[in-house]
C-alpha cells in the first residue's frame, strides 16, 4: 500500500476518492489492504455485491485514491453493477438517525456521499436537536473513520473472531445457572429495545446484576426529584417561557445538558428585536462556564458552597414560611445579590426558573424543585417526566460490583460500551478486579478496559449499526446505519441479544421486532415513517403531576446539608475536548479550543488569580493534587472569574491506552475521583516546581491594550438594555460617515450574500467551529503548530474578558472572513488568487495561490489561514473518507479562509436553475456554521432582498461592522451584545 499512499500525496480533493474506486476491484494491493483495514470478513466484502457492501467498497476506494503520476493518469469509472434505490452518483443522500451521549439522545441527519457518511446535522423534527447540533455530534463523524478503533475480535490480544466468541459464550453461559456469577456493566442507555433485552436477561438469569455507569451522569438530578417528590423524575425546563432564571452551578448552555434544546430556548429570549422581553440570567458557579459568560449577573461560589447559597435563596423566597437556618455566612455582596435575585424571581411568578447543576447534591435539586414550586413555576416553566433510563444510585451499584468482584462472586463480567476501567471511581483498583473474572468487553477503541479484558470485542459506531434511543422526554428515534461496520464491530444490543439467548441477533431484527411488537398492525408504514422522520410520534412521556410537601422536604434537606469545610476543593467537569474521554482520539475536538480558557490539546487545573497567588503558581506550573490518599498532577491555568479556593479539573485526559491522536494527551484526573468526591470535595494542592507547556489559541484576553491601558472600541460592542432601547429609538448615529476615495464595483444588482452574527445570542459553544472544519475539510495541525500560531480554523471564537480580573464579564465573538467589499487582501495579491465575486464573496482560488502571505498580513481581522506545511500528508487513508467531496483539500503553501460555504451556494443555485430557473429563496442556503448553531446566532442570506432575514437584521440599531473605521465594508456584520442587568445590582 505504501507506494499507493505516496502517490496519493498529490491528490487535492476528497472527490477524487470516489472517482477512483477503480483499481479496487482486483488489484492484489487492494486485497491486502482490505485484509488489513477490514480484518472481519474481508472475503465476503470482496465478493458480495449487496448495497451496503458496495457502498462500503466505494468508501474503501479511498484507500487507492487517484494514482496521479503522469500528465494523463489513467483514471477509471466504476459504475454500480446494479442499481441502488434513490442513489444518484454525485448527489448526497441524507438519512435520519440518532445518537446518545451520557444517556442524552439527539436526533441527527447524516449526509452520505457515495456511501461515505461525511457530515452530521441536527434533525429539525427532534425535540432535543431542533435542527442544531453541538460540537461533539459534529465531531462524531470523525470517530467513525478513526483508524485506531478496535477493529478485531481478540482473546487476550490474540486474533479471534465473533464466531469463536459466540461459541465461548455458549459454554460460558451453560455454567451461569441462575446468573449469580453474571454481571453486566454498561454505559447508560435509553434504548427501548435494550430495555426489553434487559428484562429477558433478568428473567433468564434472575441472580445476575446489570450496572449502568457514566462518568458524566445526571443521577443527582433524578435523586433530587426523588427527594422532593418521592419518585425519580427528570425536570424539563422551558427556558423560552422564563423571564428570570437562576442557575445554581448549572452550565445548562454548555456541558450540563449535552443537547441543543436549552440553548435554542434560552437564546430565543436574548434577541431584543423579537419583541419578547429579554430574559435575565443569574448564575452562581465555581468554574467560569459559558453559561456564566451569558449571565447578566454572576456570583462566584465554590461548588460546595452552592448548597448554602441555595438555602439562602430559598429563605429569601420564603419557600416554607418557616425560618430557614442557613449554613455558613454569605458575604454582604452575596446577600445583596440573592435578595435582588429573589425579588426578581418573585416579581415573575410562574415565568421564572431555578435550575440546579448535575454536580450539586440531591438536596440542592430538591431545594430548586421547592423554589420552583413556591414560585408557581412547576407546570409552567418546568415540567417533570419519568427518566428514559434506569435511574438509581449508580455509585452504590458500582461499589457493590467492586465488592462482588473482589470477593470472587463474579465469574463472568460483560462490559457493554464505555471505558469503565479508565472512568470508574478510584476507590477500587479496577484493573486488578477485572482479572478476577472472565471479562468480555465491547469497546469502541482499544482502551484501558479493552486491555484489561479477556474477550476484546470491537463496538460498532452509532452510524454503523441499527438501534433505538429515547430522548430525555421519552421521544424515541430509530438509529439507522449509514455504512456497514468498517471494522466488523457490533452493537451493545447485539451482544445483549446473545446474552439473552435470542435467535435473531442482528441489530436490525432486534429493533424491528421490538417496534413491530409495539405497533402491531400498521407496523410497516410506521417503521418507514420513523426512519424517514427520525422520531417516533406518540412516544413522548406524559408530564407527571409533581407536588412536594415543602416543610418535610426542607427538614430532610436541612438535616442532610452540612457546612462546607473551608480550604481548597477540586471539582470535576466534563471536558470540551474529550467530554469524558470518549473523544480522546478525536483530533477535531482536541484542536477546538475550550470556550473559556482557549486551551487546546490539554486539560488543566483551573483556578482563580487569587488562589493562584496563594499557591504561588502561574500558567503551566505543575500542581500536585491529593485527596483521600490519592494524588494526581495537573498543570495550573489561571482563569479570571473562577471561584477562589476551588480548582476545576476536566475529565477524559491522560488516556494510557488510546489511539495515535489521544495517547498521553493531557493529564488523567480520574485518579483523584472517588465516590466520596465524585463531583467535588476537599483536596490539597501543592506546587511541584515542574512546569508544563500549555497552548492556547488566544494570547491576549481583553480589549484593553497593554502599555497604554486603552480599550479598543469598534471590535465588540455591548449595550445594556436601556442603552439599546435608547439607541433603537434614535437609530444608529454615524460618528464619522465614511467616504470612498474611488468609485468601485456596483453591488446593487443580483444576489449579494451577507451574514449577521448576533453576539447577544452567541454562547460560544464551538459547534460552528467543528461544523466548519467538517464541512470545509479543515486540517488539524497539532499542539506544537498551534503554539506557533498556525491553527487552521476558518471561524474562530474570540473571547474577551472585561471588568475586574477577579470577577470579570466575558463576551464571545465568532470571527471568520467578513468578506469585505473593499477587501485589503485582494489588492495586495500579486497573482490575483483572491478576488471578489460579483455577489460579494471574497474568493480564494487555491490553485492560483502562490503563497506570498501578503494577504494575511494585510487582513485586519487576521482570518486568513496559511498551509505552512502539508497538513494532510500523514492522514491514514481510511481517515480521508470523511472529506467533503465538494471542497478542495488544500495543499501545502496556499492560503485559505472562509468563503460562506460557496459550495453550498453554488449547489442551491444550480438546483434553482434546474427547477425552472426560479430565484433562490431566503433561508434556502444555509452555511455550515449557521446550520450547526444551536443559538440561531448566525444568519446568512441575500442582503439585496429587503425581505430577507439577514437584510432585516442589518437594519437593527445594534448592527455594526467590526473595525468600521477602516471602511473595508464587511459583508458580515455583528449585532451588539445586549445585557439585561438588574437595576438594583448596577
Amino acid at each position, binding site marked *: 500500500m505504501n507506494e499507493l499512499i505516496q502517490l496519493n500525496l498529490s491528490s487535492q480533493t476528497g472527490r477524487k476518492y470516489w472517482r477512483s474506486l477503480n483499481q479496487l476491484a482486483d488489484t492484489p494491493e487492494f486485497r491486502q489492504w482490505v485484509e488489513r483495514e477490514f480484518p472481519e470478513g474481508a472475503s465476503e466484502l470482496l465478493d458480495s455485491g449487496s448495497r451496503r457492501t458496495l457502498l462500503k467498497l466505494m468508501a474503501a476506494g479511498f484507500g487507492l485514491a487517484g494514482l496521479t503520476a503522469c500528465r494523463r493518469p489513467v483514471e477509471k469509472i466504476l459504475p454500480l453493477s446494479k442499481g441502488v434505490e434513490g442513489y444518484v452518483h454525485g448527489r448526497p443522500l441524507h438519512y435520519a438517525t440518532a445518537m446518545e451521549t451520557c444517556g442524552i439522545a439527539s436526533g441527527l441527519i447524516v449526509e452520505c456521499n457515495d456511501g461515505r457518511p461525511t457530515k452530521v446535522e441536527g434533525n429539525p423534527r427532534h425535540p432535543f436537536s431542533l435542527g442544531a447540533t453541538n460540537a461533539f455530534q459534529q465531531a462524531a463523524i470523525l470517530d467513525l473513520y478513526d483508524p485506531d478503533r478496535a477493529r478485531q475480535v481478540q482473546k487476550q490480544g490474540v486474533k479471534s473472531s465473533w464466531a469463536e466468541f459466540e461459541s465461548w459464550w455458549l459454554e460460558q453461559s451453560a455454567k451461569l445457572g441462575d446468573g449469580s456469577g453474571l454481571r453486566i456493566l454498561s454505559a447508560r442507555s435509553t434504548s427501548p429495545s435494550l430495555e426489553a433485552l434487559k428484562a429477558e436477561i433478568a428473567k433468564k438469569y434472575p441472580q445476575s446484576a446489570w450496572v449502568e455507569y457514566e462518568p458524566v451522569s445526571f443521577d443527582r438530578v433524578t435523586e433530587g426529584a426523588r427527594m422532593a417528590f418521592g419518585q425519580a423524575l427528570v425536570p424539563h425546563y422551558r427556558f423560552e417561557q422564563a423571564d428570570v432564571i437562576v442557575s445554581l452551578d448549572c452550565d445548562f448552555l454548555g456541558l450540563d445538558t449535552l443537547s441543543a434544546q436549552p440553548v435554542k430556548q434560552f437564546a430565543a429570549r436574548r434577541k431584543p428585536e423579537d419583541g419578547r422581553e429579554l430574559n435575565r440570567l443569574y448564575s452562581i458557579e465555581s468554574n467560569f462556564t459559558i453559561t456564566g459568560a451569558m449571565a447578566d449577573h454572576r456570583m462566584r461560589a465554590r461548588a460546595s458552597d452552592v448548597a448554602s447559597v441555595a438555602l439562602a435563596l430559598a429563605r429569601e423566597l420564603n419557600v416554607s414560611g418557616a425560618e430557614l437556618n442557613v449554613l455558613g455566612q454569605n458575604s454582604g455582596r452575596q446577600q445583596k445579590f440573592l435578595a435582588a435575585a429573589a425579588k426578581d424571581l418573585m416579581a415573575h411568578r410562574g415565568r421564572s426558573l431555578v435550575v440546579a447543576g448535575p454536580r450539586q447534591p440531591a438536596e440542592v435539586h430538591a431545594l430548586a424543585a421547592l423554589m420552583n414550586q413556591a414560585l408557581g413555576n412547576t407546570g409552567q416553566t418546568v415540567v417533570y417526566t419519568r427518566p428514559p433510563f434506569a435511574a438509581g444510585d449508580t455509585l452504590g451499584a458500582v461499589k457493590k460490583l467492586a465488592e462482588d468482584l473482589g470477593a470472587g462472586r463474579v465469574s463472568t463480567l460483560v462490559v457493554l460500551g464505555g471505558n469503565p476501567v479508565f472512568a470508574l471511581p478510584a476507590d477500587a483498583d479496577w484493573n486488578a478486579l477485572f482479572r478476577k473474572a472472565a471479562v468480555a468487553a465491547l469497546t469502541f477503541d482499544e482502551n484501558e478496559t479493552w486491555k484489561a479484558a479477556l474477550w476484546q470485542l470491537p463496538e460498532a459506531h452509532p452510524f454503523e449499526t441499527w438501534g433505538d434511543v429515547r430522548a430525555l422526554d421519552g421521544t424515541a428515534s430509530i438509529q439507522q446505519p449509514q455504512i456497514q461496520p468498517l471494522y466488523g464491530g457490533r452493537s451493545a444490543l447485539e451482544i445483549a441479544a446473545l446474552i439473552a439467548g435470542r435467535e435473531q441477533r442482528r441489530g436490525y431484527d432486534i429493533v424491528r421486532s421490538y417496534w413491530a411488537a409495539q405497533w402491531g398492525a400498521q407496523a410497516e408504514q410506521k417503521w418507514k415513517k420513523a426512519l424517514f422522520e427520525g422520531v417516533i410520534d406518540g412516544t413522548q412521556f406524559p408530564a407527571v403531576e409533581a407536588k412536594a410537601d415543602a416543610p418535610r422536604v426542607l427538614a430532610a434537606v436541612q438535616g442532610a446539608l452540612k457546612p462546607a469545610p473551608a480550604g481548597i476543593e477540586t471539582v470535576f467537569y466534563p471536558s470540551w475536548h474529550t467530554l469524558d474521554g470518549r473523544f480522546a482520539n478525536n483530533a477535531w475536538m482536541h484542536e477546538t479550543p475550550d470556550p473559556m480558557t482557549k486551551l487546546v490539546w490539554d486539560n488543566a487545573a483551573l483556578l482563580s488569580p487569587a488562589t493562584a497567588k496563594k499557591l504561588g503558581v502561574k500558567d503551566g506550573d505543575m500542581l500536585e493534587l491529593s485527596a483521600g490518599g490519592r494524588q494526581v498532577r495537573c498543570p495550573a491555568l489561571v482563569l479570571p472569574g473562577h471561584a477562589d479556593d476551588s480548582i476545576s479539573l476536566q475529565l477524559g485526559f491522560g488516556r494510557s491506552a488510546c489511539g495515535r491522536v489521544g495517547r498521553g494527551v493531557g493529564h488523567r484526573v480520574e485518579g483523584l475521583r472517588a465516590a466520596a468526591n465524585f463531583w467535588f470535595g476537599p483536596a490539597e494542592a501543592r506546587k511541584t516546581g515542574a512546569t508544563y507547556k500549555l497552548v492556547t489559541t488566544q494570547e491576549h484576553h481583553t480589549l484593553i491594550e497593554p502599555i497604554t491601558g486603552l480599550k479598543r472600541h469598534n471590535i465588540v460592542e455591548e449595550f445594556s438594555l436601556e442603552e439599546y432601547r435608547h439607541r433603537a429609538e434614535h437609530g444608529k448615529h454615524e460618528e464619522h460617515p465614511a467616504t470612498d476615495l474611488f468609485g468601485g464595483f456596483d453591488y446593487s444588482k443580483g444576489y449579494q450574500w451577507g451574514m449577521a452574527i448576533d453576539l447577544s445570542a452567541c454562547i460560544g459553544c464551538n459547534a460552528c467551529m467543528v461544523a466548519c472544519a467538517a464541512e470545509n475539510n479543515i486540517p488539524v495541525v497539532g499542539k506544537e503548530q498551534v503554539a506557533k500560531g498556525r491553527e487552521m480554523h476558518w471561524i474562530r471564537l474570540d473571547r474577551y474578558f472585561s471588568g475586574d480580573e477577579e470577577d470579570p464579564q466575558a463576551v464571545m465573538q465568532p470571527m471568520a472572513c467578513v468578506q*469585505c467589499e473593499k477587501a485589503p487582501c*485582494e489588492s495586495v495579491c500579486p497573482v490575483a488568487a483572491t478576488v471578489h465575486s460579483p455577489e460579494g464573496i471574497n474568493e480564494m482560488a487555491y490553485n492560483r495561490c502562490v503563497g506570498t502571505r501578503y494577504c494575511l498580513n494585510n487582513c485586519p481581522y487576521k482570518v486568513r489561514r496559511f498551509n505552512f506545511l502539508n497538513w494532510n500528508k500523514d492522514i491514514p487513508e481510511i481517515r480521508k473518507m470523511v472529506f467533503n467531496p465538494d471542497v478542495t483539500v488544500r495543499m501545502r503553501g496556499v492560503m485559505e479562509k472562509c468563503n460562506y460555504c460557496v459550495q453550498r451556494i453554488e449547489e442551491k443555485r444550480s438546483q434553482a436553475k434546474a427547477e425552472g430557473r426560479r430565484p433562490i429563496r431566503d433561508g434556502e442556503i444555509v452555511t455550515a456554521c449557521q446550520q450547526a448553531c444551536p443559538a440561531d446566532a448566525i444568519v446568512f442570506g441575500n442582503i439585496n432582498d429587503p425581505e430577507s432575514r439577514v437584510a432585516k437584521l442589518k437594519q437593527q440599531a445594534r448592527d455594526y461592522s467590526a473595525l468600521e473605521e477602516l471602511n473595508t465594508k464587511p459583508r458580515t456584520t455583528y449585532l451588539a451584545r445586549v445585557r439585561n442587568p438588574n437595576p438594583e445590582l448596577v
Partner: protein
Amino acid sequence: MLEAVLSRLGLPGYEPEAARQKVFGVIGDFDTPEDLLRAVRTARAAGFTKMEAFSPFPIHGVDEALGAPRSPLGRIVIVFALLGLAGAVLLQWWTGAVDYKLIIAGKPLFAVEPSVPIMFELAVLLSAFATVLGMFHLNRIPTYYHPFFNYSRHAGASNDRFLLAIEAQDPKFQAEEVVRFLDSCGSRHTEVVEA
C-alpha cells in the same frame, strides 16, 4: 563552399583578393595627451581627414579636433523610453480592464495611480538596453579583429601611450609622407600598419 558564398557576399575577412585592402594606415605613438592633441591639430591643419586617435582614457577636445559629429545616442534612448512607457500602460490596461475583468478590492479595473511604478520601471529598462546596445552599434563592437591591433605597440593605447592613426583611405595618404609627418609631430615610434 561556404567560404565561396561568404566571399561572394564580401563579408569582413572574406573579401575577394582584389577588394582586399593592403594597408590600414600609419600609426604614431606619443607620450602625453597634450602631444597627441597637438599632433591631431597639426595633421588637421595639414589637410588630413581620415584620422583616428587612441588613448587609455577619454581626452577632452580630441574628438572636436578630429572634427567628429555629435553622438546620436540620446535620440535613440528617448524613443525606447517612450516605448517602455506605452508598453507598460497597454499591458496593465489590457490585462486588467479588457482581457479578464476581475473585481479586486472593489477598485476600478484600470487606474493610472497604481500603474505608475511599472510604467516607470519599464521605461527605464528599455532605455537602458537602448543605451548599451546603441553604443555597441555606434562603436561597431564587438569587433574582435581590427587592423589597429597589427600595430606593434597597440597595447600602449590601453596603458599609458597616446596613438594617432592616419588611415589609408585618406585622399592625401602617402605612406612614407605620413611616417615622416608623424615623426615630425614628435611620434616616438611610427610604423605602417597593414590591414
